[in-house]
């Protein structure tokens, strides 16, 4: 192919459009000045400040806990739903179930958040549980929409799973439960890992739903950042954002490596 100038320029423009804001954010997180937009020299003091801010650290720790918990719950529920959808090809209400499982993918966050809030309030009124709103309600809310993502990821993996592998294990004397843990689970493991990571990231990201269902003293990291930014952007938020970008980048990298490494190994033979 003839080397043109159009494609490289288009690519450069596209990438700078995507990454210029992030790069400038990371650069300015090392700015010495307390004015976010004025560069006055290199410094890591905002990182230091960040780690001495108990509010931000507390929110970060809460967010991580919520993300890990809701991703784990979603992993179990989503996998079960995926198995039901793939393995039981014909059951009453299958289409409805399939549609309902993936509905949260396209549901606006505002509506999800609002409906969950109404549900929690009603449940508290009738059942007395969950008492108030806080970490528990956020975890439940996040698990709800993460389940949909896990289900989609695991479903695609299961649908090209060769059933005769399971039959072979049973034929060799493994009970159905044993077969699931020996054969099915290891083979769909990459999908489970990426499903979990996806759920974790989505939960860490979420601002809207968490705002609806959180209570006093349970502000997640995005909520804290958002409220801080409303009072004016401070450089320590830049530092925090840079750290989050680093963590997410590592997570994406890990997920990609797991997927790539598992490819040749799990090719159906």
């Amino acid at each position, binding site marked *: 192919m003839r080397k043109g100038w159009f494609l490289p320029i288009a690519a450069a423009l596209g990438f700078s459009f995507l990454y210029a804001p992030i790069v400038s954010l990371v650069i300015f997180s090392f700015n010495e000045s307390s004015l976010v937009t004025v560069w006055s020299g290199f410094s890591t003091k905002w990182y230091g400040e960040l780690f001495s801010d108990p509010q931000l650290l507390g929110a970060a720790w809460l967010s991580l806990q919520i993300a890990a918990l809701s991703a784990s719950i979603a992993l179990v529920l989503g996998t079960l739903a995926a198995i039901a959808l793939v393995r039981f090809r014909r059951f009453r209400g299958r289409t409805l179930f399939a549609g309902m499982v993936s509905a949260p993918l396209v549901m606006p966050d505002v509506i999800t958040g609002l409906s969950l809030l109404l549900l929690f309030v009603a449940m508290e009124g009738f059942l007395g549980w969950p008492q108030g709103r806080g970490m528990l309600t956020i975890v439940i809310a996040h698990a709800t929409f993460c389940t949909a993502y896990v289900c989609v990821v695991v479903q695609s993996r299961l649908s090209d799973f*060769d059933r*005769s*592998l399971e*039959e*072979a*294990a*049973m*034929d*060799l*004397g*493994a*009970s159905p439960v*044993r077969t699931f843990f*020996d*054969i099915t689970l*290891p*083979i769909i493991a990459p999908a489970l890992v990426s499903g979990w990571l996806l759920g974790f990231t989505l939960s860490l990201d979420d601002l809207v739903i968490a705002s609806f269902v959180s209570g006093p003293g349970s502000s997640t990291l995005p909520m804290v950042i958002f409220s801080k930014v409303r009072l004016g952007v401070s450089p320590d938020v830049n530092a925090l954002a840079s750290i989050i970008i680093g963590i997410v980048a590592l997570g994406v990298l890990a997920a990609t490596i797991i997927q790539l490494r598992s490819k*040749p*190994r*799990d*090719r*159906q*033979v």
Partner: protein
Amino acid sequence: MAKKPQQLAIDTRPWRDTANNKPFVRIKNVSKKFGDIIAVHEVSLDIYKSELFCLLGGSGSGKSTLLRMLAGFETPTSGTIEIDGQDMTEVPPYNRPVNMMFQSYALFPHMSVEQNIAYGLKRDGLPRAEIAARVNELLVLVKLQDYGKRKPHQLSGGQRQRVALARALAKRPKLLLLDEPLGALDKKLREETQFELVKIQEQLGVTFIVVTHDQEEAMTLATRIGVMNQGEIAMIGEPTDIYEFPNSRFVANFIGSANMVEGVVSEDEPDHVRIRSSELGCDIYVGHGVDCAPEQRLWWAIRPEKMVLSREQPAGLHGANVATGIVEEIAYLGDISVYQIALESGKRLRVSQTNSVRGNPDAITWDETVYVTWDEDAGSVLTS
């Protein structure tokens, strides 16, 4: 080769003496329905110890469903399956003394060759040392000693096939089920593996039940063949029975190639039958009695190699068994040539002749008028 004494023949062919031999696998009136579809219909089948039994049929004939019922992956809608005198109809696959080799091989992709073979032994809780010894033994048997540490995706198709066989044999099953065992191999490898499979089977004395759609494979491997059609067993017999004495038009057409002719019984005697066939343009004289009635419409099938071509009119038998036609096509296959003869009625016969003379200049050629003749026992009279 010297002829085997009769006694020995019965020893190695227990199905010929059903009074004194107990079947090892007994399938009784087994049916399987999937919704409204009848996959297997009222199949009864006895298979004896150390047999290599082939279930032969096209796709959708129910052969795989029958095999899966033997393995325990499907439960019969009705009927019973007995293995070694025990009712196995409701026993789940993991409690059956049966192992299966899958068409796709179904090797566990996350385990090495050794782990694959050892999997069944571990489930039985055998001691470590014994498992290692058995795995080694099996690797030697299938000639994969140096491949134990490899993963399935690092093996060729033929090697995978042998790992699958070793894994299926690991638990020393009484009965081994093989689903299209050679289906995924190329032609050359297939022929080699066929003989290897028979050798291993004879060496271990395990009863094999093989499902295949390839009649050549069935003929080479099997002690007996069960031909399946639309969920039913069309015929059970030794390969020669199936080929030389088919019991129905379906079997005659399915196995090898056959010329099928329609006719009407004109003479029905205990020692011979005469069939009038307008398609052939002559009578067919059959040298044995047939269960039929005068004027009954029936079919007569003959293999291409059972007929003889000549330029001069042959004497024939009792004024029958000579048809006349024109050579329309010749397919030269080296060892034999297949002639397509167009008869006056428009019916075409396929006749094969051995090319015993090298580069024969006097061979029958295109557009010649020829006579086709055959022996009084050369064809099969079919009433269904």
